[in-house]
């Protein structure tokens, strides 16, 4: 019975696809949302992921996948409209708020999210997380960056190297 309908056969009800995380949790989402992933888009266009057989994602665990899908579901309508041009300013402001809230997370989660966005090739999410990390680095001294990113304190050699670098590029430290 589970014959997957073809990609263009769209009769009102949104087509659903199933994604399976590395720890075997099944997620059922609208094809439009999952298609934000360039990686998944082709499979979905070919009619995969429908019915009983899901699309396995061995690189993404369930916690991360649910987070990723939260992003996709939120952004799918805007993406379907062809992005910004048609979206109202209110919608855009709302999406921006969502995005800011969305990346306000623990570093380990952020890391998984970066990798998932990269593996699944979700362009918007990739740039969102990259921007988040860049913002974490902006305006900080090298020592502060090390601490923010969880580096161990520098060894004496590293410290010497830092000092030499500071001498050379002093302008960047004024």
């Amino acid at each position, binding site marked *: 019975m589970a014959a997957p309908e073809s990609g263009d056969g769209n009769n009102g009800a949104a087509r659903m696809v199933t994604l399976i995380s590395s720890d075997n949790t099944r997620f059922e989402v609208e094809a439009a949302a999952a298609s934000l992933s360039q990686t998944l888009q082709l499979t979905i266009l070919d009619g995969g992921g429908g019915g009983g057989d899901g699309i396995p994602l061995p690189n993404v665990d369930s916690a991360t996948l649910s987070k990723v899908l939260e992003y996709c579901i939120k952004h799918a309508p805007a993406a379907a409209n062809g992005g910004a041009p048609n979206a109202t*300013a209110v919608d855009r402001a709302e999406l921006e708020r969502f995005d800011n809230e969305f990346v306000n997370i623990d570093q380990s989660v952020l890391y998984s999210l970066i990798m998932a966005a990269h593996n699944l090739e979700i362009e918007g999410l990739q740039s969102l997380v990259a921007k988040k990390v860049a913002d974490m680095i902006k305006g*900080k001294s*090298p020592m502060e*960056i090390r601490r923010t990113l969880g580096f161990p304190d520098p060894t004496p050699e590293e410290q010497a190297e830092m000092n030499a670098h500071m001498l050379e590029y002093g302008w*960047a430290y004024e």
Partner: protein
Amino acid sequence: MNRQDLLSLLPDCVLGEIVTRLPTRDAVHLQLVSSRYPNAWRASPLNLDVDYRDAVRVLVYLRCHPGPTRRLRLERLSTSYYGDFDHWLLFSPALAGLQALELQLQTLDVSRRPLPPPALRFAATLVLLSFRRVDISEAALHGLLAGCPALQTLVLDECVGFARVRITSASIRSVAVSSSSNLDHATVTRPRQIIIEDAPRLQTVVPFRHRSNNHSDDDESGGGSSCRRSLDLRIVSAPKLRVLGSLSTKTVRKLELGATVFKVIDRIVKHVHGNSASHEKRSEVRAICLATTMPSVKVLALEDVDRMHINDFLRCFPRLERLYLKGSQGIFRSEGTYGVKLNPIECFELYLRRIVFNGYKGDTSDVKLVKFFLTKARVLESISFRFSRSNNNVCSEEEWIADQRFRMRLKNRASESAKLSFAHDEGYRDDDVYCCGEYARDVTDHIHYY
């Protein structure tokens, strides 16, 4: 045991995505943190903010980067050293394919030759072009704009050398223009007219001014001489225009939207206090002709608008959803039931949802205006009042707010659910440009203060 750091685990291309988003200074800092980063930096497109004072050293530093560069911002550039950059801008392979160019000169030095052929080098790829205090001739500017097929954002901030800009562009989305102010050379040509001739994708038009420069304006505002510095703005065809403002007597002297014309008019206002009478010269903007309406505009910011003529604006933008008001003047006089019935204000019926008063004072006229909105706008969801702290010394802030709410009470509100909220207006001093709230951010992010 040390926990693993976040970035070390990322593949190079992801790291590059992050590095390319960092301002130059931070990218330099990052070099130190891990030995991997210099490689990631060299492999990712540049995003350069160059303060002139660092420029020479930055140029040296950049020699080891092969490019490309996505964005280049040169700050506090001094014209006398311009030659140093000319060569770099013209020939550096690292700059090939530049998408965003922001040039900001420290001061306008009109004795120097006008700006640069280098900008032309990037015309084909430029998405964003922002000039501050640049002297550029009308022909050169038009030549440059005509050569930019992908340009989306244009900022002309205190630029001189041209009297008129005509914008005809299939790609342009946002335009911001300020008139140069602190410059009194008689020989300098100032921009006087902006004509949006044909811009099918244009969404945002932001005329603005720098607050730091207008103290002198305020002193002489009685004489209306600030108008000298404001511009004529004519919009012939911009069917997608959504965000407009801030319109003020100090930024726009004449606004032509198709056949509709708003114009600054100086008039004498008589004040009578008991036996003494005084005269005040006041500049106000009003519609001379109200024919074309602009249903595409959803967000409008008005500054120093005369309350008496606010309906002119509301009628001109029948689908207005958000209205930002700042420092209104004059006395609001309702047109009475007849006036409004004969000529209803369309945006009140279905569209106007949010009003923001910046620099709210709360005098009788302000309250009258608020009550007018509350009795007429049917779908209004909220009115925000942003007031500055120094406003009310007489009573405590809570008392003042309570008093304001009391005075705004109405039996016949058009929209029961409209919320009134009061907040401090912290950024009020320098937020001229941000009048349209977050809606003009794509362009206002590229206007800078220093």
